[in-house]
């Protein structure tokens, strides 16, 4: 009886090990293989079922948008540093601080509007149904995380913005 019990427990342990091993190996291989893609637009192509011509149009828009976005981010970073400098050692909100904060807010709003315009343009390059799904998704992913965007603007433009 003890032998049979040992056999059963051994079989159970081997079964669990075989299952867990195959699960982990296939998960790692699959994730690594799919994540190997260096193209930022891979997700768009797969998620919104874009054909080659649609993807080419989206790529054109994407590549046109990135330099503008970088430039805007750099301007925001400069303005943010200016606000910090104006605030260093200050005991109250001076006219310079006020002006810098207002300018910073304007730049942020401008950056967001530019981003939203880009989303609209990209959505129009897609089939209508996919386009509206894209627009809805991007608005949810970006505007919903507005605070995080603002936090991200604090660092140096190139480094903190994740552009390659």
């Amino acid at each position, binding site marked *: 009886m003890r032998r049979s019990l040992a056999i059963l427990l051994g079989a159970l342990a081997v079964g669990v090990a075989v299952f867990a091993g195959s699960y982990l190996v296939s998960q790692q291989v699959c994730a690594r293989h799919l994540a190997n893609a260096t193209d*930022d637009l891979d997700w768009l192509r797969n998620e919104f079922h874009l054909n080659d011509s649609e993807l080419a149009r989206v790529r054109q828009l994407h590549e046109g948008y*990135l330099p503008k976005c970088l430039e805007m981010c750099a301007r925001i970073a400069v303005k943010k540093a200016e606000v910090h400098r104006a605030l260093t050692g200050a005991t109250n909100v001076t006219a310079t601080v006020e002006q810098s904060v207002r300018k910073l807010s304007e730049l942020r709003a401008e950056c967001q509007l530019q981003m939203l315009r880009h989303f609209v343009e990209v959505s129009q390059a897609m089939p209508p149904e996919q386009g509206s799904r894209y627009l809805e998704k991007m608005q949810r992913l970006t505007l919903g995380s507005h605070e995080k965007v603002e936090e991200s603007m604090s660092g140096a433009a190139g480094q903190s913005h994740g552009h390659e």
Partner: protein
Amino acid sequence: MKETNLNPEDAKLRGLLCRSRVAPALPPRFQEGVWRRIENAEAAKVAARRNWLDSLAQWLLRPKLALVGAAALILMGSFMGVREGAQSARHEAQARYVAAVAPNLLR
């Protein structure tokens, strides 16, 4: 005809009834027999359990079944792993795109 008093409360009648009840003698080694039957019943239960475990263990050790079981586990594990891996890769790709168009958003 003479009437007979059959009232069960009658003490005389009750005495007669008690005396007439026959108490059969127990067979020889009656108690020993009872204990033996109890022990046998318990032994049968243990034997049944042992047989069940033994047969399951033997069944599991059959090469064909072991092979089929291992193959099924590998297939199931791989299927679930691929599904999970694809999902995590998809999330990663989405995060990469969003980070490119809306910088540092997801960090």
